[in-house]
């Protein structure tokens, strides 16, 4: 114990527990965020050895400046058509999130997670990858699934766990899965998808395929062992994989300092593994697109993995079960220095002369109508609230390829239970 006489003259230790710059009642404070000017961070060739580009993990790749111009070496020089397509998906994602959030509040489902403020992270990646590259996402990349053309109707059916849910109501809302769209089943156990993505990429390389894998994790779950196992495996085998760390500042109520962000950046995790690391403005869809394309080129050339830290902000609650007012300053989101990803792309398109406020307002209105129409269709197949589920017998399917005797017996017992409840 500290007062043992033999230790009487030694200096006392003190534990450091990180604390965010503001709590409820405080003014928002992002003075610790160093916002480098757009265009200021250099762009190394995608074949650059990781050690020779170590500084990138402390930089901040930004393309869109405050005026809405695309500047600097990372400008992906996308056509206005592509930019507009990206804008449409981002708007759709935000509207979809809004409708589903309300549906949860109306008792139509149990749970929902919005991606508000982080749409560029998902949508930018979708446009920079091939549609058959494999994604191992977490639960805030719905924009990517929408960008790939997965039907909103099926997403809603999943969220409602209704009769049209392709996952038979087995998964929590938003845990989408689609083999056809190269989108791996989302897990609620955080970080598990990262070594899985590396394994998929290793398999692709074993088979001399040309497809690569990408995975996303929040900054919070980079503390999981699986993230570090994945980095080791990715480095050892030079796996063709993009390891995205979405640093949205908050893991439920824990600010990014609790995950280790106070002493260094999350991109800097790459240095210890000899992996290329990029730190980018995650609210700048052109930066996301450019960094993803850079990492994809590197992976396709057998030069191995890249860790991309997307520096962004979780503009709303973690989920429908969370109230950020209990742990962070009110209006913190409005003070976020990197702005809103949709507003920034809109400003750029207007600056290019390819868009204007009227057309944007029209797009917004059309999208709301379109998403509502899909929602009405989805609700015809039921919602969790009205309990129009798949048949109870389906609960026992897909546990194994062939149902073993004990499950067949339990299914019969379950059917008898249903009968007993009816009579």
């Amino acid at each position, binding site marked *: 114990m500290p007062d043992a006489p033999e230790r009487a003259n030694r200096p006392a230790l003190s534990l450091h527990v990180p604390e965010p710059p503001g709590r409820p009642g405080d003014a928002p404070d992002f003075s610790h965020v160093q916002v480098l000017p757009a265009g200021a961070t250099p762009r190394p060739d995608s074949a650059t050895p990781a050690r020779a580009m170590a500084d990138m993990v402390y930089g901040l790749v930004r393309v869109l400046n405050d005026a809405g111009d695309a500047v600097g070496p990372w400008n992906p020089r996308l056509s206005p058509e592509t930019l507009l397509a990206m804008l449409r998906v981002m708007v759709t994602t935000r509207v979809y999130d809004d409708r589903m959030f309300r549906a949860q509040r109306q008792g139509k489902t149990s749970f929902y997670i919005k991606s508000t403020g982080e749409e560029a992270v998902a949508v930018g990646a979708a446009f920079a990858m091939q549609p058959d590259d*494999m994604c*191992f996402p977490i639960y805030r990349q719905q924009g990517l699934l929408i960008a790939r053309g997965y039907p909103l109707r099926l997403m809603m059916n999943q969220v409602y766990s209704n009769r049209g849910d*392709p*996952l*038979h109501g*087995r*998964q929590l809302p938003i*845990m989408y*899965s*689609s*083999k056809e769209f190269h989108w*791996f*089943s989302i*897990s609620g*156990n955080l970080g*598990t998808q*990262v*070594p*899985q*993505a*590396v*394994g*998929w*990429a*290793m*398999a*692709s390389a*074993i*088979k001399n395929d040309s497809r690569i*894998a990408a995975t996303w994790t929040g900054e919070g779950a980079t503390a999981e*062992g*699986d993230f570090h*196992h*994945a980095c*080791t*495996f990715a480095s*050892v085998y030079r796996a063709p994989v993009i390891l995205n760390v979405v640093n949205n500042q908050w893991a439920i109520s824990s600010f990014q300092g609790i995950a280790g962000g106070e002493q260094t950046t999350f991109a800097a995790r790459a240095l210890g593994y000899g992996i290329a690391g990029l730190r980018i403005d995650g609210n700048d869809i052109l930066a996301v697109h450019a960094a993803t394309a850079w990492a994809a080129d590197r992976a396709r050339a057998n030069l191995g993995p890249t860790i991309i830290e997307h520096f962004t902000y979780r503009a709303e609650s973690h989920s429908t079960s969370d109230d950020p007012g209990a742990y962070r300053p009110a209006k913190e989101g409005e003070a976020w220095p990197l702005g809103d990803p949709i507003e920034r792309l809109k400003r750029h398109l207007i600056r290019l002369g390819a868009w204007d406020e009227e057309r944007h307002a029209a797009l917004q209105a059309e999208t709301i109508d379109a998403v509502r129409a899909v929602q009405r269709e989805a609700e015809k197949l039921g919602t969790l609230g009205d309990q129009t589920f798949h048949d109870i017998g389906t609960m026992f399917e*897909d*546990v*194994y*390829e062939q149902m*073993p*005797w*004990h499950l067949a017996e339990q299914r019969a017992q379950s059917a008898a239970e249903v009968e007993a409840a009816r009579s």
Partner: protein
Amino acid sequence: MSTMNMIEALNSAHQIVMERDDNVVTLGEDVGYFGGVFRVTAGLQKRFGKHRAFDTPIAESGIVGACVGMAAYGLRPVAEIQFADYIYPAIDQIVSEAARLRYRSSGDWPMPITIRSPYGGGIFGGQTHSQSPEALFAHVAGLKTVIPSTPYDAKGLLIAAIEDNDPVVFFEPKRIYNGPFEGFYDRPASPWSKHPASDVPEGYYAIPLGKAAVVRPGEAVTVLAYGTMVHVARATAEHLGVDAEVIDLRTIVPVDIETIEESVKKTGRCLVLHEATRTAGFGAELAALVQERCFYHLEAPVERVTGWDTPYPHSLEWAYFPGPVRLGLAFKKILEA
């Protein structure tokens, strides 16, 4: 036919399946160039190349996590976890991921993964090289758990496990890699070559998962066992002159309930035997199944003979191990009841 010990039989299973199916890859700590600390994967890298048999970092969760991704791609990975005692870091990837992916994706992502691991005690391996954690995996929906007891079964069951489209945990009782062990630790060890089950076909054959084998017919009492304990049961019964019917379960999930039921209804007595700790061990499940299905045929309570509920001790290994003395006392008790 060749005479093989269990290691050679398991190696032969790998050789045959990897020859037949390009999608089978073998990975794990020391499994590549060196061929595994127990030599089960010897020669695979030389024959099939570094893309098909390779070393991994010491990270069991990384190994199984990578296997999940490989299976999602369409490969059929076979991972070695060097000792069953090291499997715990991979629990999340096994339990929450591999075991559930077919279910949670409604069939989109089956997980044809085999996780092999040397297990059990009797080699003075101390606490970290002796455990029998099969009950933890038997408890998990979506997993199959297999434990062979002879070279012949090891090869046929491993081929079936690798070809199975669901994840299989395959525990290899390392005490019997080189010869059957009857529990008489103070007697000279006998090699597999003196045992008929070391006659192993060189070619392909599979033993279906979920099928037990009656390895010794008898009328007085049914012994349910697997792995090393099958040999202990048979030898002890012979040594004491007990007319025991010894059933080698071979697969504990799914368990062969028909063979169990048939035997217990015939003998009216049932003794379950495992090396693992007693409380909530797989023997508890067996005892429950037997009383649910055979209660009115039972002449005596179901007996459990197991390891003690302690960590596996190093120097006191033989006091821990459920050997012929413990089993003999249980035989006496159940037959006199």
